[in-house]
């Protein structure tokens, strides 16, 4: 639009023109973002995506109810392996080089136009950058709206406030790296098939989790990752019985041209355009 503004009426018309222009642009972005820009791949096979043993840097068994935190450098990856289909593993992520930058659940779902985070999607920080890519995923059902368990949720569900919970686990993991309560924010819980009905009520999709499920997170910057192995608050079952999980850190293959996570959406592409210059 190139018009010379001469009067209040012209100015009002220009404002209206901007509104219509922005509305039209948003509708185009939404259609592309929720459409078939590039179809999401199927879930990873539970027997697929075998990690070359020579690339493995660390393996850690995290007992049911416990937590672990680790640094994962750019280019490395973290596999969360769930051998006995425990219902939920909550994760918080910080930029290890500046922990004021951290996982932002709102941006992650808003930017990608979906709360369904699965293979091909990425996890965004609060700075418009990509923390990690979901490069493999057998489960495809994870939750970042409801969060992990807390003292209160354990009390309501199990009538026992003394059971270990994800909120306190993430607080402890953060604390071991010198971080504190102010550094926690909404987390993501893998292996948590939370359903949202048309009225916004949360539920749980039973039968989704299988023994041997895993999810791979490729670090796109140097990360500090906290992992809490406690059942999701919406998981069925009146008995608190989280099973052990395994965390594997390995040296991932460099992203190739046409890398799924880098090219799945225009939004992810721009996220990487914001991220890569940190490492120039």
């Amino acid at each position: 639009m190139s018009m010379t503004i001469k009067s209040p009426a012209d100015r009002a018309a220009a404002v209206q023109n901007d509104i219509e222009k922005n509305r039209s642009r948003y509708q185009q972005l939404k259609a592309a973002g929720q459409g078939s820009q590039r179809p999401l791949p199927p879930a990873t096979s539970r027997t697929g995506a075998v990690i070359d043993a020579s690339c493995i840097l660390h393996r850690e068994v995290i007992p049911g109810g416990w937590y672990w935190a680790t640094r994962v450098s750019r280019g490395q990856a973290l596999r969360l392996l769930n051998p006995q289909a425990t219902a939920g593993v909550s994760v918080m992520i910080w930029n290890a080089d500046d922990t004021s930058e951290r996982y932002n659940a709102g941006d992650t779902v808003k930017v990608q136009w979906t709360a369904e985070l699965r293979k091909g999607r990425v996890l965004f920080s609060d700075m418009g950058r990509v923390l990690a890519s979901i490069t493999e995923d057998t489960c495809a059902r994870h939750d970042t709206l409801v969060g992990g368990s807390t003292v209160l949720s354990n009390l309501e569900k199990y009538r026992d406030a003394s059971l270990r919970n994800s909120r306190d686990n993430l607080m402890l993991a953060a604390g071991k790296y010198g971080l504190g309560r102010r550094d926690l924010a909404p987390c993501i819980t893998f292996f948590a098939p939370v359903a949202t009905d048309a009225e916004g009520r949360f539920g749980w999709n039973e039968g989704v989790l299988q023994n041997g499920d895993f999810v791979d997170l490729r670090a796109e910057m140097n990360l500090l990752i906290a992992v809490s192995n406690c059942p999701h608050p919406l998981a069925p079952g009146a008995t608190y019985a989280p099973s052990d999980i395994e965390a594997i850190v390995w040296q991932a293959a460099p992203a190739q041209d046409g890398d799924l996570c880098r090219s799945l959406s225009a939004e992810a592409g721009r996220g990487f355009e914001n991220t890569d210059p940190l490492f120039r």
Partner: protein
Amino acid sequence: MNTSNTGASREASSAIHDFTIPALAPWSGLVKRGQVIRIVDLEGQQAVDTLFYRADDFSERYSAQDTLRAQGSAYVVTGTRLLSNEGFPMLTVIANTGGAHDTSAGACSCESNTVRFGHHTKYMHACRENFLLEVSRHGMGKRDIVANINFFMNVPVEPDGRLAIVDGVSKPGDYVELRAEMDVLCVISNCPQVNNPCNGFNPTPVRVLIFQG
């Protein structure tokens, strides 16, 4: 889902605090236990990004995930108890005429704007600019900006997980009222976003009133 409840009527003239937040601007104020804060969407379809901190310890603050988990559903409506990161009730929504309010999509920022709308939108005013300036006045910084409530912002979560900001349903004069269950600092960004429908692409003023309970 109870999205329309006019609740108790309080005369604006009885408010102990009455301030109109200009379009695009931040605001913060103290709401003491038992007091009621009313946020009025004066012209309709205006997102009001809002954070709450415990007044005597800002490291205890509103937790979106605790709040949604406890109520078992995805939106802030009449009756929603806003919980802190320690699981304590901070405020309760006691009246609402403005639809189901979002607390999952967060606040806009210059950085996320580049990802969502293109790099050319980087140098535009955004909610997290407002938040950062306003919390800095209280000795806080970026780490203290957590997931907020977006009053009057309409973000339906579809059963298949799709989620988008769509046209707001609030009409001129719609309002929400919250009763404080503890002394809280309320921090607001009157959202300046023009790249999506949260403000009808045209940010407008909102009014904040605080009443004795």
